[in-house]
C-alpha cells in the first residue's frame, strides 16, 4: 500500500563555469528559436563522461549525473555524501530553485524546503512578521499561519522575542525559528538541508523527535542531509548516497 511520493528519472545538472549562456547573443537567439519550435537545444553540452565531472574544453561541470531514485510516501530519506557530492544541488532541484539540465522528476503534494539557515528571513522585520512573510512564501494563507503561530513560537522557544527584529536574534534562535516554521506549516514533503547541524544537542534531539512524529503520525515524506550524525541516521528508513554527482549503491 505504499504510494510513491517522488520519482526521479535520470536527472543531470551541468554548471557552466565561465560563459554567459552560449557565449554569444546570436547563439542564444538560435537556442531560443529552437526552444520555441520545440526542437532540441543545438548547443546542449556534451554528455557527461564517467571519469571526470569537469569537462575542461567546454568548461562544464557536472554536479549530478544520471540520478534516478524513488521515494515512498511517509518515508524518511537520508542524503549522504562528501562535500561537493551534489547533495545541495539535488535538494535545490527538488525545491524548484533551479532546474535540471536533463531528466525528469515527478511527484505529488506540497513541498516545503529548508535549504540554509534563515530561509529568507527579512532582518528588519520582527519574528511575528517574518513568520507571516515566510509562511506566505511557502504558499500559506493568513488563517493557516494564524492557527499555527503559537505552536511555531512554542517549539522554537522564542515566544519572548516575538516582537523583536530578527536581526537581533542569535544564530541558534534563527535556526530554531526557521525549522519550526517549516515543520509546522502544511506540507506533504519536507526537505531539510544541513540545518540540524547548527542547533545545540538538545534542540537537535527535539527536531529528530518532531520529524519522527511528522513521518509516522502525519504521513509526511522527509528528505534530509544526514551527514555523519548517528542520531539522524537512526531516523532514516533509507539512504541515498552520492559520490561525485553519481548514485552509489543505496
Amino acid at each position, binding site marked *: 500500500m505504499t504510494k510513491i511520493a517522488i520519482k526521479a528519472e535520470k536527472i543531470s545538472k551541468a554548471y557552466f563555469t565561465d560563459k554567459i549562456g552560449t557565449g554569444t547573443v546570436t547563439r542564444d537567439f538560435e537556442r531560443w528559436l529552437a526552444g520555441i519550435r520545440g526542437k532540441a537545444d543545438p548547443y546542449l553540452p556534451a554528455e557527461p563522461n564517467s571519469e571526470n565531472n569537469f569537462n575542461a574544453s567546454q568548461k562544464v561541470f557536472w554536479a549530478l549525473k544520471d540520478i534516478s531514485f524513488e521515494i515512498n510516501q511517509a518515508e524518511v530519506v537520508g542524503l549522504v555524501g562528501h562535500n561537493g557530492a551534489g547533495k545541495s544541488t539535488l535538494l535545490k532541484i527538488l525545491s524548484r530553485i533551479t532546474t535540471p539540465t536533463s531528466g525528469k522528476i515527478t511527484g505529488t503534494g506540497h513541498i516545503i524546503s529548508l535549504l540554509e539557515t534563515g*530561509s529568507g528571513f527579512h532582518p528588519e522585520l520582527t519574528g511575528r512578521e517574518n513568520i507571516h512573510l515566510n509562511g506566505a512564501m511557502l504558499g500559506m494563507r493568513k488563517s493557516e499561519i494564524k492557527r499555527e503561530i503559537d505552536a511555531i513560537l512554542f517549539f522554537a522557544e522564542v515566544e519572548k522575542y516575538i516582537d523583536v527584529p530578527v536581526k537581533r536574534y542569535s544564530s541558534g534562535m534563527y535556526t530554531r525559528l526557521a525549522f519550526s516554521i517549516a515543520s509546522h506549516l502544511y506540507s506533504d514533503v519536507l526537505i531539510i538541508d544541513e540545518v540540524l547541524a547548527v542547533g545545540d544537542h538538545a534542540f537537535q534531539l527535539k527536531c529528530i523527535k518532531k520529524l519522527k512524529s511528522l513521518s509516522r503520525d502525519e504521513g509526511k515524506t522527509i528528505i534530509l542531509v544526514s551527514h555523519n550524525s548517528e542520531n539522524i541516521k537512526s531516523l532514516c528508513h533509507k539512504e541515498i548516497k552520492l559520490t561525485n554527482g553519481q548514485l552509489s549503491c543505496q
Partner: protein
Amino acid sequence: MKNNNSQSWTIQSTRSVTDFKLKQILNYRYLIYCLVHRDITALYKQTILGPLWLLIQPLLTTGVFTLIFGTLSKIPADGIFRPLFYLSGIITWNYFAECLNRTSTVFKDNRVLFEKVYFPRLIIPISIALSLLFRFSIQLLLLCTGIFIFHEHGTDFQYRWTIALLPLITLLMAFQGLGIGILMAALTAKYRDLTFLLAFSIQLLMYATPVIYPLSAVPVNLRWLILANPMTAIVETFRFSFFGSGSFSWINLLGSAATTIALLFAGLLAFHKAEKNFIDTL
C-alpha cells in the same frame, strides 16, 4: 489541513514556453499582500517626515519645472495652469519610471531570497507595481487638491465624462511599467551591461514623453517619434481626463494599449524563461 494530496507535479529541463502558470499566482495572494504592506510601511521607517516624502518629491519637482520650463524657457502648456500641468506629468511619469526601475532588477535584488525559497517569481514585480499604485493614488489626491485650490486660474474644472478614462489609463500605465520592467529583469539577469544602459535611458526617455511640454507643442513632422513612445498617449490622456484640453485621440490610446499588451506578453515570455535557471548564472 488542505485536501490536495493528489496534486501532482513535474520538474524537468524543458517546459512550455507560454505556460506562465498565472493561476498559481492567485494561491499566493497572501504573499502579495504581505509584500505590498511591507513595502508601504518599511519605506519610511526611520525617517522624520515619513509618508510626507510622497508629497514633497513631486511638489519640489513641480516647483523646479515651473521655474525653468515655465518662466525661463516659456514652453506652452496647453492653457493649463502650469504647476498643475507639470504635476500631472510628473506623477504619471514617476509611476512608470519607478516601476520600470525597480522591477528591472528583481533578480539581482532578491537573489539571496530566490536561492532559498521557491514561489512564483512574478509575485515580486506584481507586488512592486501594486505598492507603487498606492503611492500614485496618494499623489493623485495631491493633484485633486491642487485643482480644487487653483480652479480660478483658468483651469475651470468641471465634472467631465473624460474622468472615466482614469481607471483605464492607470491600468495601462501599470501594465506598461510592469511589462517593460520584467522584460528588462530577464535581460539584465543575463547581460549585466544593460543595468547601466537602463538607468540613463529612463532619464532620457522622460524627454521623449510629454511631461514638460504638451504634444501639441511638438512640430507635426516629429510627432510620430514622440507618439511611438507608448507613455505619450497615457500622459496626454491623463491630462485630458482632468482638464479637458490637450490632444486626445482614441487611435493614439488604442495604439498605446496594443503596444502595452505586446510588451507585457514579451515580458512574460522572457521572465518565465529567465526565472528557470538565473540562479546558476547570476
